[in-house]
């Protein structure tokens, strides 16, 4: 399981995941975490506390907008929604991510093809 919550590690990716999650509709921090984990089939597990600095940073930059709501138990809950700027940012990040991921995929595929002939030689035990 990969962790997306380490400082400096996949920070831009975490922002993109948050924006993508909020593109489906407004949600609070806990709900955003659950959606990410569910959508990734628990492959991506975000360190829960680190989500909130990311949310506040995105809100400061105007990509998302927070609003206090009252839960059924009376507790205050802050819900976030995507802004127009956030939607544009998501589109840009998604395109970048796709381009980078395909480039990485191509590199990995080429490496696999270069290694494959060597692997084709049977191990001594197999002879």
């Amino acid at each position, binding site marked *: 399981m990969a962790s997306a919550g380490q400082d400096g590690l996949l920070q831009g990716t975490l922002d993109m995941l948050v924006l993508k999650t909020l593109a489906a509709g407004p949600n*609070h*921090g806990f709900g955003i975490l659950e959606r990410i984990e569910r959508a990734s089939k628990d492959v991506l597990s975000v360190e*829960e*506390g*680190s989500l909130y600095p990311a949310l506040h940073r995105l809100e400061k930059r*105007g990509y998302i907008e927070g609003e*206090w709501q009252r*839960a059924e138990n009376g507790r205050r809950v*802050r819900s976030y929604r995507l802004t127009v700027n956030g939607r544009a940012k998501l589109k840009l990040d998604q395109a970048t991510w796709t381009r980078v991921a395909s480039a990485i995929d191509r590199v990995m595929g080429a490496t696999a093809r270069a290694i494959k002939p060597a692997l084709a030689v049977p191990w001594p035990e197999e002879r």
Partner: protein
Amino acid sequence: MLRGAVELVRRRGPSAPARTPAEIDADIADEIASHLAMRERSFVDAGLDGESARRLARHRFGDIDRITTRCRRIAMEEQVMVQRLNAVLTVLLLVAVALLGIQFMRSQQATRDSLATIDARLVAMQGAGVIEPTPGSPTGKRTANMPPAANTGLSGFVYLAGDVERAGVYDLPPLGSLTIRRLLAAAGVHHGPENQYIVTIRSADQPGQVRESIAIGGPADASGAVDAQVMPGDLVDVRRVGGGEQVRKAERESKAEMQRVADLKRQIEQVDKARVVLAQSTSELMDTMTRDELQACLSRIAEARTWPISDPNVRSQLTARFNDGLRRQRARQD
């Protein structure tokens, strides 16, 4: 920094409310608490007991203090930026004010230097006789307060008054010094053994106090050694001993005496006219009088003690006239 400030203004917009640090902390705490509560309930729903669910929720969340600090820093970023911007602007303003002050002082100094240069050149030109100072002009006033210029002696004016032919304002010579004797000579004062003058000098800064008083001329001043130097702004008063005021007093008395003489002459003329009229009237009157009346008048004239009959000339003239009247009457009766 400038780019950050522009970004800050762009982001804030017109209606962005500024939260206090306490409000920011309260919002962060509420948000974390709601998250922990939801996570705890999910664990309870999964079958954990309350205490385990609470402990596990806090564990999965991470270091609450560290997360709170990071969130607070992000929230305060704007206010910190504004504070930094204010600090930078304040420093810039202070620097600008300081630069303006320095520039102003330099300008003042340059102006003073230029004025000093102009004054020095004017004094030099006065010394060379190119121009003459004008008493009361700004240049004259300023040079009176200036320190002595090199090789030009003292500069300024002195004020001369009293029993002199040419009282007025005199400027100090550009070379050498001005003494009382030279000043009196310039003012047309002829002092000598018969003409003595008392000269009093008052300084410009203490006009009510006599700085020096000397006697010029007279029998005791045959050697001419007594003298005094005149300084810029001095008030010099010259009084002639035995002349001056006494002469003016004698002139005033003489004029009064002449006026009195004129008045007396006018009175005498009036009396003479009255005498002529009286003589004519007396002659006409005597012609109508009897001898006894004429004799009575002669007796009254001889006994009169009031002026002008008491005057011997008038008495003799009147007596002669009445005697003449008696003779004319005797001649008419004869």
